[in-house]
């Protein structure tokens, strides 16, 4: 069923169809509408979910952790400062191997305070142990919210999954979205099989134990095995979702004219749409331009990415956040992935779009043109659309 809806509504609809047992949330721009839609579903009696209107994001995720450990299927959503406030608990959710799906309506972090999009919130959670997926459109936000639930709950994964969608650009714009039937989504996500649920009072378990130098290291290594399981499960979930939805998802990233591309742009989220238009224009002019849009950012698909760049002469990696004092986080991922590769294209790092600064097709065409003239990889940050 095709509908013209906002990214918020698309995510909220996916959540309604999944119908988690517990939805704990605290409102923040630009995520609030997800909380509002879900509250409406609960108050209208459309879902049986227990809604916890928490007094902060920290408590919202803490309640999710309690509910997930108890054996419930749980979801939440946040943005920006909310993510910053709850990030302590996100690390714990990952350490306790709890499958919590969280929509992250990407918004810049303070200061200065700003409500518009960049990826500084997602970057803050980079090392949290949560799986991170980025979406280009409302359709992808809908689809990946559904896929995330299955990925998070897979017995080999059991980790929180963040579904990133660009604040305002995706959350507040109306786009055509193909929705699945409720029944199709329910069958796809299936029954939730919790591990050692706290509510099994006949088999009491201790959750969140205290582990010192004698065990901490081994437990964290075991956590990494959850991350190691993600790529295979991610592909399997994509395959199954493609089958039930008729939409094609195959791989950790989407390539656009990538096969024979000599000049490649790598960018997360909605800006990939702009980049596609830039690639089209440059192809018309005869430049072999291409795009690589990662869907999966954590774990980072390093080998597949290096393989996909085997024809590239130069690659522009775009970061929508500073990692102050060093290069962009996505750039560093790409550089590390290519270091072990036989073919190493020239790399350039661009910071763009901070605090909602618009990035246009001509801006990205300029990046491609500049990329042709960059002689070698340098430790230099470049900027798109910055007044200097």
């Amino acid at each position, binding site marked *: 069923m095709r509908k013209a809806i906002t990214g918020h509504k698309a995510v909220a609809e996916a959540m309604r169809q999944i119908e988690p*047992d517990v939805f704990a949330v605290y409102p923040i721009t630009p995520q609030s509408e997800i909380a509002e839609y879900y509250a409406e579903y609960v108050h209208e009696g459309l879902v049986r979910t227990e809604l916890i209107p928490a007094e*902060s994001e920290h408590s919202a995720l803490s309640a999710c*952790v309690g509910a997930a*450990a108890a054996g419930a299927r749980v979801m939440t959503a946040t943005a920006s400062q909310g993510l910053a406030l709850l990030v302590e608990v996100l690390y714990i959710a990952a350490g306790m191997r709890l499958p919590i799906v969280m929509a992250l309506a990407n918004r810049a972090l303070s200061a200065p305070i700003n409500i518009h999009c960049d990826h500084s919130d997602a970057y803050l959670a980079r090392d949290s142990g949560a799986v991170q997926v980025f979406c280009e459109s409302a359709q992808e936000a809908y689809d990946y919210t559904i896929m995330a639930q299955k990925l998070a709950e897979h017995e080999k994964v059991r980790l929180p999954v963040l579904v990133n969608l660009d604040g305002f650009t995706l959350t507040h714009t109306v786009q055509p979205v193909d929705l699945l039937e409720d029944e199709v989504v329910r069958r796809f996500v299936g029954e939730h099989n919790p591990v050692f649920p706290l509510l099994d009072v006949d088999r*009491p378990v201790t959750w969140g134990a*205290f582990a*010192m130098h004698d065990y901490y290291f081994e437990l964290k290594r075991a956590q990494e095995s959850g991350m190691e399981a993600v790529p295979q499960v991610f592909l399997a979930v994509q395959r199954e979702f493609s089958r039930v939805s008729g939409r094609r998802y195959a791989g950790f990233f989407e390539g656009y004219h990538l096969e024979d591309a000599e000049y490649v742009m790598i960018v997360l989220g909605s800006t990939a749409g702009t980049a596609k238009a830039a690639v089209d224009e440059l192809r018309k002019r005869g430049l072999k331009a291409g795009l690589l849009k990662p869907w999966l950012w954590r774990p980072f698909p390093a080998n597949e990415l290096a393989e996909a760049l085997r024809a590239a002469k130069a690659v522009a990696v775009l970061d929508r956040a500073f990692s102050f004092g060093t290069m962009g986080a996505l750039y560093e991922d790409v550089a590390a992935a290519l270091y072990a590769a036989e073919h190493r294209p020239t790399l350039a790092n661009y910071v763009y779009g901070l605090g909602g600064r618009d990035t246009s097709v001509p801006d990205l065409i300029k990046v491609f043109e500049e990329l042709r003239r960059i002689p070698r990889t340098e430790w230099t940050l470049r900027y798109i659309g910055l007044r200097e």
Partner: protein
Amino acid sequence: MPSIKVLAEREEKEVRFTAGHTLCAGCAEPMVVRTVLNAIEDPVVVASPTGCLEVATSRFPGTAWNVPWIHVAFENAAAVISGVEAAYKALRKKGLITRRTRFVVFAGDGGTYDIGLQALSGALERGHDFLYVCLNNEAYMNTGVQRSSATPQCAATTTAPVGEAIPGKPQERKDLTEIVVAHGVPYVAQAAVSRLIDLANKVERAMKYEGPKFLNVLTTCPLGWRTPRDSAIPQAKLAVETRYWPIYEVMEGRYKINYKPKERVPIEEWLKTQGRFRHLFRDPRGKELIAQIQAEVDRRWELLLQKERCFGPSA
């Protein structure tokens, strides 16, 4: 009302909190925890924030908990139990859980009065069905006796030491019990480790109510109070006799003082037995400070009497 015999029988049948934890010798916490758990007949799920109880009972790969137990962080036990209780409700609606289960938080004063106050207030306001027990030992004992907002005025702590300029903690302790009362929850009470039957009775009365229940239990810490190891019970007893720690409950907004000391024992009698107040008896400013502490104890006691008169069971 559960007698000692009933509590003992229940514990014999099912040990909910086992030996082998690493709490200090003379610590009052296990007595409170066992009494509370034995006073509840239904299955129980427990949440604890970071603190003495948590580190001393959950060192991997061991555990002292023979009931389902969860620790997440320092400031969020009330939020965690909110989630557990919501999960219970959701799974019960689906018919996946049939047995009645109760939810209890054991938290220190640091995790309750200070860093966990927001989460507590949120959970109280939302009306989750749980019992929150504050094991109030009046400082951050787990991390080395730093002051909290439950620490009494003038007490020496590592972050409010006795110095030439400032003799111990300058501020009065926060009246958290009254803050909880202001939330309008069905059951709020103060208890002390020296009165375990009173504590058990309070737990039993509390658990008859749906919704949030709160118990603030004076839980002596010989280490932090700098008293002998065998002093936990007499210390708590004296705190009650001096009216420093009134034993009372507020049921549906109705105040009842459960124990009124017949004689007015001066606060000095309690202060002089504790190392954390030793300076008050050596310093020339001590007399005046003791008088201040006494005045505050008297003021709070009078206020409580007035509340009982105005909002008592018969008022």
